[in-house]
């Protein structure tokens, strides 16, 4: 590629021997390659390194006037416990024993409950998240993410104040509180 001799023939008259002049041109191909590689890198990193935000809305603590009545049969309550375990049940607290699951299985349960409800009554599933003191921040983010993956369109209710005794007992029995 190096441009050393570009004049090929044509100009030789009378067999005079010419001293060849070394060209001052440098091969820039590699340099351009490198420059474009760096450009690509900087372009991608400037826009990709931005962190992702997950929007959370919590009920107002003082404003108790706004109340939304829900049908118990359409709610799924997920309790976040320690050791990365969750307990979930459908309907009212205390009526059925909560299922204890890990984060790997909870997605299937959410999708199953959602589809069952859709088939039976054509209603959207309402999810209530109750993080307990044993849970860590990652569990909370994970469960919100699972809801997003499962395509729960209704805003989940996040309730960390009213954790009922029956729920606490069930979690204690399973050793995750």
């Amino acid at each position, binding site marked *: *590629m190096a*441009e050393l001799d*570009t004049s*090929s*023939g*044509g100009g030789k008259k009378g067999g005079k021997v010419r001293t060849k002049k070394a060209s001052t041109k440098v*091969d*820039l*191909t590699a*340099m*351009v390659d490198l*420059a*474009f590689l*760096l*450009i690509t890198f*900087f*372009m991608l*990193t*400037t826009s990709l*390194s*931005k*962190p*992702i*935000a*997950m*929007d*959370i*809305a*919590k*009920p*107002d*603590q003082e404003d108790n006037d706004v109340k939304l009545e829900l049908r118990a049969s359409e709610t799924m309550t997920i309790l*976040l416990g320690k050791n990365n375990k969750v307990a979930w049940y459908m309907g009212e607290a205390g009526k059925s024993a909560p299922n204890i699951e890990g984060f790997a299985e909870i997605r299937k349960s959410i999708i199953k409950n959602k589809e069952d409800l859709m088939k039976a009554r054509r209603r959207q599933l309402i999810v209530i998240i109750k*993080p*307990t*003191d*044993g*849970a*860590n*921040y*990652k*569990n*909370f*983010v*994970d469960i*919100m*993410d699972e809801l*997003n*993956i499962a395509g729960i369109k209704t805003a989940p209710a996040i309730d*960390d104040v009213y954790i009922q005794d029956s729920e606490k007992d069930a979690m204690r029995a399973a050793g995750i509180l």
Partner: protein
Amino acid sequence: MPRAKVQRKSTSIDMTAMCDVSFLLLTFFILTATARQPDPLEVTTPTSTYKFKVPDKDIAILSIGQGKVFYEVVGQDVKKATLDKMGERYNIKFTPEQRERFGVIGAFGVPMANLPGFIDMNGEERTKYLKNSVGIPTDSTNNQLSEWLLQSRNSVAELHQAQMRVTIRGDGKEEYPVVKKIVDILQKQKINKFSLITSTE
């Protein structure tokens, strides 16, 4: 008889112009890329599949890790205005030079009383100081975090006529009660909507 000779052309192209352009672009991207300030509080954010990107203005970032809270509000003008308001509130006088310096300080976790001394330190001392710092006090009797939030919200509203978005950058291993305590402070101020910062999976 003269023979018609076909002039052979070289296949190599002159790369000079291309090289110039590419380096110009490279310089531009390097200069516009904002240097990421090192985070004084080590936080590993959990991952998620959300796609919404954090806006780069009119936000406040609360870093939670190791039971401590660090605070940062984005934007030099907002930082300075917030510092003025906080100085008034706690009767601390800041010199114009300290104001200027505070404008470029990133996240910090210093009680109000130590703030002037903290601003006067150089970068290295500051990083060292923050390693052992207790974070911003959040007790109910001396809730400086709440005050910082309130003053920066006011500053953003005055300067940009916008609502400040509060984001929480929590460590994955942080226990939920610690996060709940901070969220309760937000909710006391009627901030019922906020964002959690996560990283991509």
